[in-house]
């Protein structure tokens, strides 16, 4: 992946690299799917 100096200026929030932010978004999706699955199962 090409990364230029712009990357150094634009640090993400809370994380050292953008990878952390991407994993946060994917992790949040997985958490929501598990939560929604638990709700569905509870009322099934």
């Amino acid at each position, binding site marked *: *992946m*090409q990364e*230029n100096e*712009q*990357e150094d*200026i*634009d*640090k*993400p*929030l809370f994380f050292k690299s*953008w990878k952390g*932010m*991407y994993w*946060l*978004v*994917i992790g*949040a*999706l997985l958490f*929501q*799917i598990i939560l*929604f*699955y638990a*709700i*569905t199962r*509870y*009322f099934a």
Partner: protein
Amino acid sequence: MSILDWSVLLGTILFITVYGIWRTRGAQNIEGFLKGNNREKWWTIGLSVMATQASAITFLSTPGQAYEDGMRFLQFYFGLPIAMVIICISFVPIFYRLKVYTAYEFLESRFDLKTRILAALLFLIQRGLAAGITIYAPSIILSTILGWNINLTNVVLGVLVILYTVSGGTRAVSITQKQQMAVMMGGMIMAGIIVVNLLPPYVSFPDAIQVAGEMGKLNLINFSFDWNDRYNVWSGITGGLFLFMSYFGTDQSQVARYLSGKSMGEIRLGLLFNGLLKIPMQFIILFIGVMVFVFYQFVQPPVYFNKLEKEKVYETAYAERMVKLEQTHHAIYKQKTKHIKALVKGIQSEDAGAIVNAKTNLNGFNKQEKEVRNQVKDLIKEVNPKAETRDTDYVFITFVMQHMPVGMIGLLLAVIFCASMSSTASELNALASTSLIDLYKRSVKEGGSDKHYLNMSKFFTVVWGCLAILFATLASQLDNLIQAVNILGSIFYGTILGIFVVAFYFKYIKANAVFWAAVVAETLVIFIYIRTEIGFLWLNPIGCLLVIFFGYLFQFLRSAKQ
């Protein structure tokens, strides 16, 4: 509607329009008009992206969908966060470094002019039609429920949007979308709180959730796979991923939102903000629909929510049949009442036997209720074969008009107007920038002055705005147009995405191969749509994969020949 409601409605939409014009007043150049001088911060980008996607139908139709079908529609959005990550990694760095005004500009540097123009034209056709529907869809519902003149509603909505979009361009669109999002989310959260407060005093919020669950409305996740089922985890993640990659990565109405970002980091944060908040936002809207369903377990709902179509039946010889159906519906509701009370009592006393007993009875009555509703729909069809019998779009607005307190009605109508205006503004801005940058400036008049291009941008915004109003007016004479335009989007999106995916990841495939691959793929997608029953969401990955396949094949044959 009361004076207070009118004041809230008009005050909100006029304030946002005037504020948008005022904040972006003064001299501008083409860079400022089309890209907002690249000064937007991540929260503005995130809200702007969300506001563009949230049309009036989101707020009118989604709660109705939850009322009828539960919350499973939420799975449609599971591909969105993944799409945001892929776009941040692949699309954003290229668009940002090339300093493009439109997504299609990049295709000329990667392929050639004809591929750029093909993609731009596909976008203009699809989005031009969609802009008309974005205006028409709320107008038809508001005119039906409130008795407003539909053409006047179309014109008022369209003209307000044209005013600030022409005045301030991209920046005006982004600035107004922040306020519009605040109105939309604030209004919906207040609506949710009021729905729960409107429940009988003996039904608490946890009881209401339990009732919704027991009646099958909290059906959020379905892991079973079915090609023809639009809403399961697999179709949401795969079909939704392709759809949202196309929408956010190649649709100029979204690309323009983030190209106005101050830096690549701001753009990425804005998109990831959308990836984090979109599903919770849809959850809230669907949940409000479920609470409206619970409310209508304690208050009798109309037998049919589109009152205009129902009233038409009363003006004919079929009136007596409608009276009988309404009486049957009322009788069923009366019988249901004691069982719904028994269910709440069972929930409160944690009596599993009482819950099962009440649920069995309620399911029986709900089935009878559904049968009566179907008979009403058949009757409406007999009177008017062209009538749209799906009344879920009218559920939430009917509830608002009949049960919300004074002031809230105005605010929730403002939510619907804001949603329609925010989407339309992005669409007009994107249609104008694509017309100018990809067609006019590239193929009609190169080397014009900045002022000339600025004036032409404004001219194109007005032209597309007028076309959108005209199309919205003509749309009232056509059937099922909303669904038709959604399908149209899926038919074109896959091919456009395929061109971009080839551009980013398949360096082997060159201009002519991708161009003809796109033409063949598009033809096949249309054929598949016409000749098969496959859910239209799947057309997105199919179109994309066909472009890659034929691109490879044509390039291979071309290389072998040479």
